[in-house]
């Protein structure tokens, strides 16, 4: 009796779902047909694909890239059609995603993490009609170029704030992966702090991940337990600023504005604005002029900024940050000006010498004032 009843109920439920599905289908199809008619007169939009290593979420690296994608849509309207695939691991899966984006008719493809380099290069060599933009890598081809942002400029500026705000004279950095970019940021942060407070030292915790809230938090807590009272991070989540908030210390947002995650602890956010570069790349792909090059953009191009300065900062600190920012923009102030010495006191950049980009790409050491050893 019961069996019969429940079977009938199940059948009824299934049928009801099927009917509901059929209804949805026909409605959507009708709408589609209308859209198609309207599209027929316009030229085909440039299809642009984005591949993200993390979830778009609400803060950090991928969030910043996705904001730029939205800016591209806004700027170019129906001349472009963008789509993205998020959380694609840096491994064999990325090749299928890149190829699928090519198969979908995308003519410009942005890969936003270093680990896609070999994949993108391989696909680029096989599909000449498609252009590839690879963030943070060093290999390029006729139809593949690289772009990056001068994150060290933001790191230097928040370093200036840290140097002014620290009471213990101990700063901490939650660092991701020991590649030159991250070492450069730790050094710039320390140099910024030393420029206003020669007594500061910096401690570093490496978590060997770009996004791992659990480990980022552990690292932040370990640094604060060692006496650090102002933290910077070169990782993607909001765990560091949140941990600082709980412990009554200070911290900086990274890659995107993180002020709302830590109202008390947050002093400023060093952000990346990919929109200017993405607009340039799309404009070149649409109107011509796209060529293989390496674009390394910073404050001057509007790709880097320090935003959401806390009310806790004294007016003179805000003014100082603004002055340095302007100086970097117009070239009157240089971050990498000698003498710069490493931990052992060895001169890495002679007095009054100004570093070239190549020198910056080769940083594998800590400046004096950073404690601990660079992971080998």
């Amino acid at each position: 009796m019961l069996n019969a009843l429940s079977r009938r109920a199940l059948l009824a439920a299934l049928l009801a779902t099927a009917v509901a599905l059929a209804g949805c289908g026909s409605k959507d199809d009708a709408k589609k047909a209308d859209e198609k008619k309207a599209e027929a007169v316009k030229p085909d939009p440039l299809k642009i694909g984005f591949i993200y290593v993390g979830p778009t979420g609400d803060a950090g690296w991928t969030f910043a890239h996705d904001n730029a994608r939205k800016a591209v849509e806004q700027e170019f309207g129906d001349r472009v059609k963008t789509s993205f695939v998020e959380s694609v691991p840096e491994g064999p899966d990325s090749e299928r995603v890149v190829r699928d984006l090519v198969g979908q008719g995308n003519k410009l493809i942005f890969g936003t993490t270093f680990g896609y380099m070999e994949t993108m290069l391989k696909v680029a060599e096989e599909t000449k009609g498609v252009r590839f933009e690879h963030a943070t890598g060093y290999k390029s081809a006729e139809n593949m170029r690289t772009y990056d942002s001068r994150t060290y400029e933001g790191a230097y500026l928040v370093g200036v704030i840290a140097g002014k705000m620290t009471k213990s004279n101990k700063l901490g950095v939650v660092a991701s992966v020991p590649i030159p970019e991250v070492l450069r940021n730790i050094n710039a942060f320390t140099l910024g702090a030393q420029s206003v407070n020669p007594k500061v030292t910096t401690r570093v915790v490496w978590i060997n991940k770009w996004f791992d809230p659990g480990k980022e938090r552990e690292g932040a807590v370990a640094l604060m337990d060692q006496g650090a009272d102002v933290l910077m991070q070169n990782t993607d989540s909001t765990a560091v600023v949140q941990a600082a908030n709980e412990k009554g210390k200070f911290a900086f947002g990274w890659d995107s504005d993180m002020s709302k995650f830590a109202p008390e602890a947050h002093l400023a956010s060093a952000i990346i604005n990919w929109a200017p570069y993405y607009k340039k790349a799309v404009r070149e792909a649409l109107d011509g002029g796209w060529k293989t090059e390496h674009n390394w953009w910073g404050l001057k191009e509007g790709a880097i900024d320090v935003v959401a300065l806390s009310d806790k900062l004294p007016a003179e600190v805000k003014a100082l940050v603004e002055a340095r920012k302007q100086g970097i923009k117009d070239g009157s102030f240089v971050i990498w000006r000698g003498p710069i010495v490493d931990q052992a006191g060895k001169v890495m950049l002679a007095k009054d010498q100004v570093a070239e980009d190549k020198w910056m790409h080769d940083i594998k050491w800590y400046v004096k004032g950073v404690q601990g050893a660079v992971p080998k």
Partner: protein
Amino acid sequence: MLLEPMRSQLGVWRIERRPAATAWMRWASPLLALLLTAVIAAMLFAMLGKNPWQGLAVFFVEPLRNAYALSELALKATPLMLCALGLAIGFRANVWNIGAEGQFLLGAICAGWVALLDLASLGSVGLISLLLLAGMLGGMAWAGIVAWLRDRCNANEILVSLMLVYVAQLLLAWLVYGPMKDPAGFNFPQTPRFSAASVLPKLIEGTRLHIGFVVALLAALAAWLFMFRARAGHALQVAGLAPQAARYAGYSARRALWTSLLISGAAAGLAGAFEAAGPLRQLTPYVSAGYGFAAIIVAFVGRLHPLGIVLASLLLSMFFIGGELAQSRLGLPNALSGVFQGVLLFSLLACDALILYRLRRVV
């Protein structure tokens, strides 16, 4: 099994074991679970404001649309299949190795190490055989630690095998950040690219599908023969189902432990070797996309049976790929494929429970 009766306005109900579970339902249950997953998926699509038919098509039709798509499906299923086959043999013997992920990584590390040695004189066939063998040995050694600790110290194999996954991940990280790092790689965590001699032969030219898929199918056949036609396989399963009967029959529990762990270690290690030498072509910290863990789902959805595992690994691979396609085609979030995996496993467990048990009104 008699559980506490449930009282409600509709009377008093009790969950009780069915006198005899319908035999064919045991096999129908995964299909029913799949159907339920599809229905729930369709409802999810509708709730997200997408056309459910389109959504289902992206997950269940698009991954099969042409030879290239099929090759990608098989490529992704290969490591899942190999890992799950090994795990199933262990699970049948009541040996709960959940660390296939770690054994997979060791396989990749050992294979990568061989691929980076200067062994061009061996020729392509020699080099590939050697690196696959090295991968298997690596996986076996990692699983061997689990067997040894269980055998010697009676350490729980579930915990030990899981913990060794993290050790393997850290070992891989240490190697690619340290001794095996590409000197020309700007300090990025990666080894140099493997030499051309170690490229695996392709099954279909122009795709990434390599001989690993055929090896995995052969492994399924071998697993079937071992489970149902070999004395050793029989002994293993008796040890799992009825340890005392096994002892009475003279089957050694130690042997069951070692055999099942070494087999699953070898299978996972081989999967890792294929992944490293196949689509990856270098070691990075991101060798595995969680294949060792997903293989546990595959083993159970496949009913711990080789044929079931072949089908289940293709199904799970379809979900993974469908999840990517749903993003670029429909703008749906990536979390969806994880939700589907969970719903599938949940539906399967629910179906199984209702096949073995029933609700009966007692008052």
